[in-house]
């Protein structure tokens, strides 16, 4: 595939991110998971003692928890064949010019430095196990915004880090949160000071280049009172014959009156297992929005959640999933109402094509005392082939009678009538289909910054090619 490929030429059925950069890592841990690997990771990061203890404890928890017996089929995920730590460069750079040439080439092909200049407040780039680049525009730095690699966050802000780290997602939460807690590497540390409004997005870019690689990014975000920011992550990897593995943990604390949006556009190659835990703790009158786009991977299990712990807090999850041949997107959202007058909305749109399967899995929980809570869940699934499959598994658990909870889901095929109408207006069948699908995901696309919305539409449209018949 040529390096100068433009966005117009991208086609997921012919996965555009399928190129491999030849590089030599500076350190590669042995295959598989062991206490030694965990110690190596901690050693290379020159961590404080408490973090090593935390990792070792998490490893024990990971070993003691069974694999989930629900959700995606993980039987092809062989952890003994995975490299858990691969250090690509000796240090992180703050200028693109200093980034190792091979790695730089990768990100240039993905259009990252360009995007930074034009539309982003800050950029982080992770290659294999480490962040290789992190920068923040001066105007935000001056206002006290922190946007660092998670490792630098730990070294530079030890107290703030320790105060919040693992309070949103403890290692015992689930098997893969425990795994991440043991072997985490890379990810961002973000701090938005009181009242600061970062009005253009911060972005982190995650790239897995090596074969049989496991990437375990860990992100901790603290949005202080009255602040506002938007963080975007994007993910790609080349296609190998063996499975790779990505298991992130993202913890967000949204304080009083703050507003935080976290967007994921996940476009991993379709041999990637993607098992991610994302959770926000939302305080009084604060607002948390998850926007979760899952287009790639072999199997994804991911349910962004909002714990609404302060009065008047609001949480929303907007999820769009595309499951093509052989893919299983097991996604959804969770909202936990633990304070009065809290509100939440989950909107999920999934499209299944070929042998793809998309599952919505969600939880809406209302604790006693969370009076006047309101939650609304809407799931729509679109099936494009006879062999595709969709499931909806919402859990509703209500312990408060002064609450209003609704869940609605529909499953449908693209309507013949709708198609016929559009075709009678001069569109061919493929165009008509793409238009219907575009209309279907529109509520998600319009929440994205324009250039991402365009890319999402484009991806979906290309996926539709050849889907007619």
């Amino acid at each position, binding site marked *: 595939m040529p390096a100068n490929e433009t966005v117009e030429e991208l086609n997921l059925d012919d996965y555009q991110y399928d190129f491999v950069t030849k590089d030599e890592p500076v350190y590669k841990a042995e295959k598989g998971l062991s206490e030694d690997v965990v110690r190596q990771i901690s050693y290379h990061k020159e961590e404080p003692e408490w973090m090593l203890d935390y990792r070792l404890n998490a490893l024990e928890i990971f070993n003691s928890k069974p694999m989930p017996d*629900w959700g995606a089929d993980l039987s092809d995920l062989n952890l003994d064949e995975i490299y858990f730590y691969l250090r690509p460069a000796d240090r992180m750079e703050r200028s693109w010019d200093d980034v190792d040439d091979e790695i730089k080439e990768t990100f240039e092909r993905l259009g990252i430095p360009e995007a930074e200049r034009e539309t982003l407040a800050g950029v982080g780039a992770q290659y294999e196990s480490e962040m290789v680049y992190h920068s923040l525009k001066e105007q935000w730095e001056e206002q006290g915004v922190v946007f660092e690699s998670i490792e630098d966050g730990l070294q530079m802000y030890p107290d703030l880090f320790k105060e919040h780290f693992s309070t949103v997602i403890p290692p015992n939460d689930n098997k893969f949160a425990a795994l991440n807690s043991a072997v985490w590497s890379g990810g961002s540390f973000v701090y938005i000071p009181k009242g600061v409004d970062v009005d253009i997005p911060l972005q982190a870019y995650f790239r897995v280049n090596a074969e049989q690689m496991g990437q375990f990014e860990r992100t901790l975000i603290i949005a202080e009172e009255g602040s506002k920011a938007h963080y975007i992550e994007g993910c790609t990897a080349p296609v190998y014959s063996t499975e790779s593995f990505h298991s992130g943990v993202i913890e967000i604390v949204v304080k009083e009156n703050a507003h935080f949006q976290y967007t994921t556009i996940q476009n991993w190659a379709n041999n990637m297992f993607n098992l991610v835990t994302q959770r926000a703790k939302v305080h009084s009158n604060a607002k948390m929005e998850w926007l979760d786009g899952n287009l790639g991977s072999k199997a994804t299990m991911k349910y962004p959640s909002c714990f609404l712990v302060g009065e008047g807090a609001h949480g929303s999850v907007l999820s769009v999933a595309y499951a093509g041949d052989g893919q299983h997107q097991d996604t959804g959202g969770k909202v936990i109402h633990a304070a009065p007058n809290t509100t939440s909305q989950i909107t999920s749109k999934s499209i299944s094509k070929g042998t793809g399967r998309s599952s919505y899995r969600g939880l809406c929980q*209302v604790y*006693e005392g969370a009076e006047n809570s309101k939650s609304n869940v809407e799931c729509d*699934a679109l*099936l*494009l*082939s*006879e*062999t*595709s*499959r*969709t*499931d*909806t*598994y*919402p*859990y*509703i*658990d*209500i*312990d*408060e*009678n*002064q*609450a*209003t*909870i*609704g*869940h*609605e*889901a*529909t*499953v*449908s*095929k693209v309507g013949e009538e709708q198609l016929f109408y559009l075709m009678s207006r001069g569109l061919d069948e493929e165009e008509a289909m793409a238009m219907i699908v575009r209309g279907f995901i529109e509520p998600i696309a319009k929440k994205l910054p324009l250039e991402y919305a365009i890319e999402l539409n484009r991806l979906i449209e290309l996926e539709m090619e050849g889907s007619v018949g």
Partner: protein
Amino acid sequence: MADGTTTAELDAPGDLVSVADRLDGWLEELDEPETLVEGRREAWERYRELPMPQTASEEWRYTDVEDLRPEDFGFVEPEAARSVEIEDLPATVQEVLAGEQDRSGVAVQVDAGEVYRRLDPELEEQGVVFAPIVEVARERPELLEDRLFSSEVTDAEEKFWTLHRAIFSGGYLLYVPENVRVPEPVHAFRYLEREDAIVGSHTLVVAERGAEVTCVEEFLSPDLEETSLSVGGVEVFAGENATVRYISLQRYGRGVEHYSVQHATTGKDSHLSGFNVALGSDRHRADVTSHVEGPGSESEMLALWFGDGDQHIDHHTLQYHKAPHAYSDLLYKGALTDRGRSVFRGVIRVAQEAQLTDAYQTNRNLLLSEDSHANALPNLEIEADDVRCSHGATVGQVDESQLFYLKSRGLTPLQAERLLVFGFFEEVLGRVPVEGVRSRVRSAIERKLGF
């Protein structure tokens, strides 16, 4: 409040021996056709191999039976049928019987023995059978073949299903031959008065091609001091173009735990309607499956519950579409007050060959008190692409604006709330074609609302 408050002592109950201690020996000496005895033996062995359902499993997550030991409950041996006069029946049963004249058939069972049965002689002449399963197994075993205990139960249902198969007593076959229409409901009463006992009634309804029948099964008991278990099973077969309505009206007193596994199967172009009402007992758990196997068939699934005190009401449903062009519609509505708790878990499953399926599922919950608690888990599993499926679940309180409106028309807050609860249930009740059932459900709700 219990529906049955009097105890008609037909016999002074003697001491019971537990199921575990009694069953092996009893099976040896049982005077039943060998196929039934063998079936009981197999089921009992399987039951003993299986662990109690665990709350770690999806299906039993909110209903904890881990410490329940059904085999330690007193075994009430099925008795030979006895004939008693109407005036010797329990008062609650008499009351219901007196209130309704139009029945094509009636049977009354007390604990594990039948005491009364009647079927319209005209229907009998037309070949309708309404008789104990044991009797049918002796005289016309072909009517049971491939039907009795043929349901494919899930792993989650198997423990109670095998128990039911091993101990079932006084079960009925209701058989309607081709093109025969049973004009009025056939009504079976299950009256439980033994304490510390376990009983299990089986109902098998078979409607051949073009037949039509309505079967009502009503569960009654006084309030019991010591817990008794009712472990029931229901199998319904609607033949081609047949119409079958099955209604289960659970009005046990307190001190009873009711577990029920129900499987219904639709034939081509048949119409099936199931209605489950849970008003009584301490704990009610029903697993209700509709196997939509006939192309062009329709399955309606309705339920209504009202939990008060510490009642725990759990419904698990499956709308399993295996044939094209079929339709199913589920509407389950429940209200809770005091410390009442309810669980609804419903699955619509559409197999790949079931194209052009229309399947709907709605669960609505009304919480009337601070300490009530509802769980709703509506699930969709869709493998066909040309389908229309939707589900919805809500949990909430009575609508403020409606309450306000009614109060502005001069109603007290309590009156207004009662009216709205009635309105809530009317959507389900209005779809039940048996007047007697509707009125009994209404008065039970009135009592619960404290009229």
